[in-house]
């Protein structure tokens, strides 16, 4: 019933608006078309001016309300460069934005039609065209240079001492694999995947896999100030590892291995203080639409000191040991830890 009433009400409002609009049309015929047109022209010119100033005020208010939420503190080394480049680009485009919008609204108001005005026949001026072809080209060249310098720095090969971690996306969560003591990620094969006991399809023929550690809860533990190289893959559809605080993003594509590296510079604990938010957590968002659970595909990043990381790592059990614990005679210790890590999960 209320739905019906709403529809009736909306229809009525539309009819009223339409009737008023129609009436104004008849009125203009009665009062003399020319005179009404002049009046309308003036009104609209002033309305556009009002729009312009309200717009400026709106931009100011919007900025005041949102500037603190806009860009989270950069928590990676290159993120600082990124923020600088963003600021430069914002400044350049901001200047152009305000200049051109002001000119647009100014000209519109200044050269509104009046009885006395005639337009100025001005079809072309090659010098002007040359000026406003060259200037944007130079500015763009500048932005390209800054951009490419950063781009090549970000996409350069990771330092040799980087921590290596694999991140694999699946509908709808992230699986993290650490290389274990040998620091080598063993081979994996999608045909060997089994959700019960081999979520990444590790090839047990490859001995490098034996000590690999898998975190199915999507928790990525990193060491502060130590470069990390992520080896990114996907089990099913395309996902994307999005790390807003680290200013990084890379697709996870089935059948293709992608990589990215960065150096986290602020631990999670420090970040909680910095933001004043005790619940603060670095998040991994999936940034490539991957199905109905796309919005819930959340991972977390824990940045900790080297000592903390060591302590945490020591508590982890190799995936092979976890899955084959009962059959392994040599791993009573590991079994105890497994239950521990499961409760943690």
């Amino acid at each position, binding site marked *: 019933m209320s739905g019906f009433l709403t529809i009736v009400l909306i229809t009525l409002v*539309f009819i009223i608006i339409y009737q008023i609009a129609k009436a104004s049309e008849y009125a203009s015929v009665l009062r003399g078309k020319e005179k009404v047109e002049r009046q309308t022209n003036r009104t609209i010119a002033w309305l556009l001016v009002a729009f312009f100033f309200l717009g400026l005020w709106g931009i100011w208010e919007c900025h005041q309300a949102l500037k603190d939420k806009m860009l989270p503190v950069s928590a990676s080394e290159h993120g600082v460069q990124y923020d600088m480049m963003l600021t430069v680009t914002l400044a350049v485009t901001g200047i152009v934005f305000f200049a051109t919008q002001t000119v647009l609204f100014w000209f519109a108001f200044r050269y509104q039609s009046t009885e006395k005005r005639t337009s100025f026949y001005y079809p072309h001026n090659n010098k002007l065209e040359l000026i406003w072809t060259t200037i944007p080209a130079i500015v763009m060249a500048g932005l390209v240079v800054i951009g490419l310098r950063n781009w090549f720095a970000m996409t350069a090969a990771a330092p040799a001492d980087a921590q290596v971690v694999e991140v694999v996306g699946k509908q709808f969560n992230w699986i993290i694999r650490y290389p274990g003591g040998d620091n080598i990620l063993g081979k994996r094969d999608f045909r060997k995947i089994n959700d019960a006991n081999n979520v990444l399809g590790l090839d047990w023929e490859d001995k490098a896999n034996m000590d690999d550690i898998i975190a199915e809860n999507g928790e990525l533990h990193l060491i502060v100030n130590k470069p990390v190289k992520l080896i990114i893959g996907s089990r099913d559809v395309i996902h994307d590892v999005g790390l*807003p605080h680290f200013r990084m993003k890379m697709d996870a594509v089935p059948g293709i291995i992608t990589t990215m590296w960065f150096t986290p510079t602020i631990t999670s604990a420090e970040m909680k203080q910095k933001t004043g938010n005790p619940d603060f957590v670095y998040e991994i968002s999936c940034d490539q639409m991957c199905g109905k659970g796309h919005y819930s595909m959340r991972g977390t990043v824990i940045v900790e000191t080297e000592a903390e990381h060591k302590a945490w790592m020591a508590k982890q059990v190799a995936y092979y040991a976890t899955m084959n614990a009962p059959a392994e005679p040599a791993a009573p210790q590991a079994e105890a830890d497994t239950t521990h890590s499961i409760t943690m999960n």
Partner: protein
Amino acid sequence: MANQVIIEGTHVAHAHESHTEHHGHEHHEQHFITKYIFSQDHKVIAKQFLITGIIWAIIGALFSVFFRLQLGFPNETFPIMEKFLGEWAKGGKLSPEFYYALVTMHGTILVFFVLTAGLSGTFANLLIPLQIGARDMASPFMNMLSYWFFFAASVFMFVSLFVQTGPASGGWTTYPPLSALKEASLGSGLGMDLWLVSMALFVVSSLLGGLNYISTILNMRTKGMSMTRMPLTVWALFFTAVLGVLSFPVLLSGFVLLIFDRNFGTSFYLSEIFIGGKALPHVGGSAILYQHLFWFLGHPEVYIIMLPGMGMASEVLANHSRKPIFGYFAMIISLIGITVLAFLVWAHHMFVTGMSPFLGSIFVLLTLLIAVPSAVKVFNWLTTIWRGNIRFTVPMVFALGFVSLFISGGLTGIFLGNSALDIHLHDTYFVIAHFHIVMGVSAFFGMFAGIYHWFPKMFGRFMNNTLGYIHFFLTFAGAYLIFWPMHYEGIAGMPRRYYDYTAWESFKQFQGLNEFISYAAILVFFAQLVFVINFFVSIFRGRKLTNPNPWGATTLEWTTPINPGHGNWPGEIPEVHRWAYDYKDDGNGGDFIPQTVPARPGEEVH
């Protein structure tokens, strides 16, 4: 109607030989069906495209209201949605599956059905023959087919909304493997097949139309109408057609491979996939290949959407400022620049797919290069209104709004085209804000400017001005209110295409803002209904045209009678003696000289 019969009854004498063979049909009383349904008259086909486009636009906009309700009020229920969507919104709460279907359909409908078919389908059909002085298209029959293929595409797409597993829901870009595998998503079932069939038909429609537009412009210009005397609308529509003809076939090939992967067991896009509890046999394909094929159209598509708006805004700005467009040749050269560059920048949508950084750097360079012709256009528009005599008619305010929005949306492209910045902004709300302002709202403003400007030509009546101004100010303000704050969300890294942000520590802070944006979106939706009502009521009840050239325009379409019949000019086709922008003193107190007026002695003509 009376003069239509006269036109068709009279034997038409031809001024220009090349037109004789294209005319000569339909010298009899026409049946309703051949006149309004299976019509070969370009003007009727234009109206068909426009009205179909408007219907789709309402559907697409309504979908955005539905998903904005979810985004703005994730914890509330809206029983009214259940009335519309049934089981997809049980208890008034949108299901995630259908949220994604709505997002996908909103994109597909608006990008292809409204801003491609509805925009260039309408205005290329209406304006090309009228403005170059032709009686119809090069092939009126192919032109008719173009509309009916679009209609068939529409039917398939519409049907797909009602299948049990829902319409396609992999985003308007439908990236495989998500779109290729039924196990990956409900919408990748029958809905996706229908989507592909519909889009294939759509490509056919677009190609039939585009080829026709190109050949008409190249071959059927009236005497005196050299290429450099054509209005910029025709130039813009010409390059739109060129872009479509060169890029849509690539999209179709991408779709054909996708159909094969979906139904015939090939592995073009699929490799090493474990889904639905089993490993699939596909090995060796590349999911990225699809993205290359898609964006090879996808990027030119952006300009297919933008160029008609640019052309119409140029025409409207010049006409209502009573001034020639500034830098006519620079405008054409920048159109050429945009058209060429449009084909060389597609991979800027793929900076984070793991592509070679070196290749990425080339695309950065070429992408930012597009800013140059775009800037030239903006400066030329600004100089066009400088020292003009501006009449703030409804089309004019929309054209001014177009320029404002084009600047706002264009500038944010500089962020996204620079890969080092894109790496953080990619697939966030920043992208949504950018492309909605520039190719969404701005293109719509170009389209509205065109509709309000040429409505008198189409229907012999005016649209209501007051409603037009209400429509303009609500939409202009509303568009900025919706999309401006989204930049902030994007810079914070908030990903697009999320159903719910409440579980995210980094993004839930924007809940209040999302609510605000949803209110603005609903406001803008109702503002569009003002337009729709104005449009349809004015067809029948609008103020009648008495002057065949109500805007004081120089171009040829206004030399036809009010409500021209098939063949456009009752007598000879007018001959053209000057360029399309002679807005200057005609010596008798008028402020424009139509293209048909011969040069006065001693006058220098363009």
